[in-house]
């Protein structure tokens, strides 16, 4: 009977119960005056701020700017990480030449480079792009390398016996075999991407959600600060859901990813 219970409306509502209860508690506390608005504004105040910002267009503008930054950084850093991961996974020479250096750099927290990056690029767009790209590079690189290296050698031998050339072997055996690991890297990278963007936009930017929050702080507009935090949470959740959807599509063969 457990199977029928897991499909019922009750269990579908289950994940929403705790967040809903927290919001109600928060609203009640604000309404009763336990929570002063300059510490934490009521959820209704945050909604109101969202409505105002939506109407004057600044929310959409800032959201667009932040989203574009995140995606450009992800694409640049991800593409480089993916390519180097494949290269070093497939070629022993490549790995010996590059991997020790990359492993060394990996141990530097990329946010520690902020002072240097500001000196190099100023506080312009390229500085933020550089930081995001650097941040997403490593999870994607490491997991692609790991994935390629861990493809079952028996399957590779099978492919060779059946006369697959290098290209077919790569497309039909190595890449699909490495894909679960690459997706793990992508999900890590998305987390790093938002974190880096928040820090970069908070420190130096004249647009974007992080900037919106910092500008609001100067005028003690806690409702807009909280709104910015909520938006980051929603963006992070959306990115994670998108990856899950991709996993379900591309890893449907794997019982661990099959739709539950």
């Amino acid at each position: 009977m457990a199977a029928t219970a897991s499909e019922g409306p009750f269990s579908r509502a289950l994940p929403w119960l705790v967040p809903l209860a927290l919001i109600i508690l928060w609203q009640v506390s604000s309404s009763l005056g336990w929570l002063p608005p300059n510490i934490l504004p009521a959820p209704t105040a945050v909604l109101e701020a969202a409505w105002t910002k939506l109407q004057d267009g600044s929310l959409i503008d800032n959201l667009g700017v932040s989203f574009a930054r995140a995606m450009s950084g992800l694409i640049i850093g991800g593409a480089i990480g993916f390519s180097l991961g494949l290269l070093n996974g497939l070629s022993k020479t490549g790995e010996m030449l590059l991997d020790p250096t990359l492993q060394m750099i990996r141990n530097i927290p990329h946010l520690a480079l902020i002072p240097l990056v500001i000196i190099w690029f100023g506080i312009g767009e390229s500085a933020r792009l550089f930081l995001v790209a650097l941040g997403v590079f490593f999870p994607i690189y490491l997991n692609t390398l790991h994935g390629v290296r861990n493809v079952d050698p028996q399957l590779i031998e099978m492919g060779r016996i059946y006369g697959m050339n290098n290209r077919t072997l790569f497309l039909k055996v190595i890449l699909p075999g490495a894909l679960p690991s690459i997706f793990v890297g992508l999900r890590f990278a998305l987390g790093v991407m938002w974190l880096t963007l928040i820090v970069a936009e908070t420190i130096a930017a004249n647009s974007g959600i992080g900037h919106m929050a910092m500008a609001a702080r100067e005028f003690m507009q806690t409702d807009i600060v909280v709104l910015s935090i909520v938006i980051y949470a929603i963006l992070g959740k959306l990115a994670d859901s998108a990856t899950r959807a991709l996993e379900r599509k591309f890893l449907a063969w794997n019982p661990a990813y099959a739709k539950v």
Partner: protein
Amino acid sequence: MSSQPTGGSRVSLKDVKKAFGSNVVLQGIDLEIPAGQFVSIVGKSGCGKSTLLRLMIGLDSVTSGALDAPALKEQAARIVFQEPRLLPWASVKDNVAVGLGEGQSGQAADKQAAEILEEVGLKGREGLWPSQLSGGMRQRVALARALVSQPTLLALDEPLGALDALTRIDMQALLEGVWQDLGFTALMVTHDVGEAVALGDRVILIDHGQVVLDLPVDLPRPRKRGTPEFAALEGQILDKLFGDDPRAREAH
């Protein structure tokens, strides 16, 4: 039956030796295997039986001596391993299509794949993932993949070794039926003497890198285990394997 007979091809070995460095694995191997024969190869672990199999289908080369197998020149030799080695991310049909080689796709390929899947009893399962199949069914897909290109020589390296006892009996019957339908030459390595007698036209016993017994099995098919003739042949092979040590025989 859905698939047309493909026929078999002969294999002959003359004074074949195989060594890895200074380690001699096989020597003085003389064998004539006529087209279409089912040969069972038995022996203890590490006796060189799998190496012999790999030599005969061209996965390794001989150190000295002569190996003549027309199937190798025609690229008509295939192998089934103990593990099915299916691509987990490819459907049953696509896994079978791997056996057709480079650039083979489209309707003709689909038809060939469908025919061979029917032959191994997997009709209607073309679209499933390997993870949705039982161990026996996965091995059937591996067999279909090996057979779809119509090989004349099929090597089976302990093909049923990883299956449970009941599935093994089922699969032995399937293997015999497919071999009778298609007529390829079958070379099967097994550690199960009963299986070797049940399926082989001939049982070859390898010990310390040499053929120590080459026993024809002249029983009508499908063979019944437990008949006196069957037991006598099994006994003959076990005697040769373990000498007169009764405890070792009992353990087997």
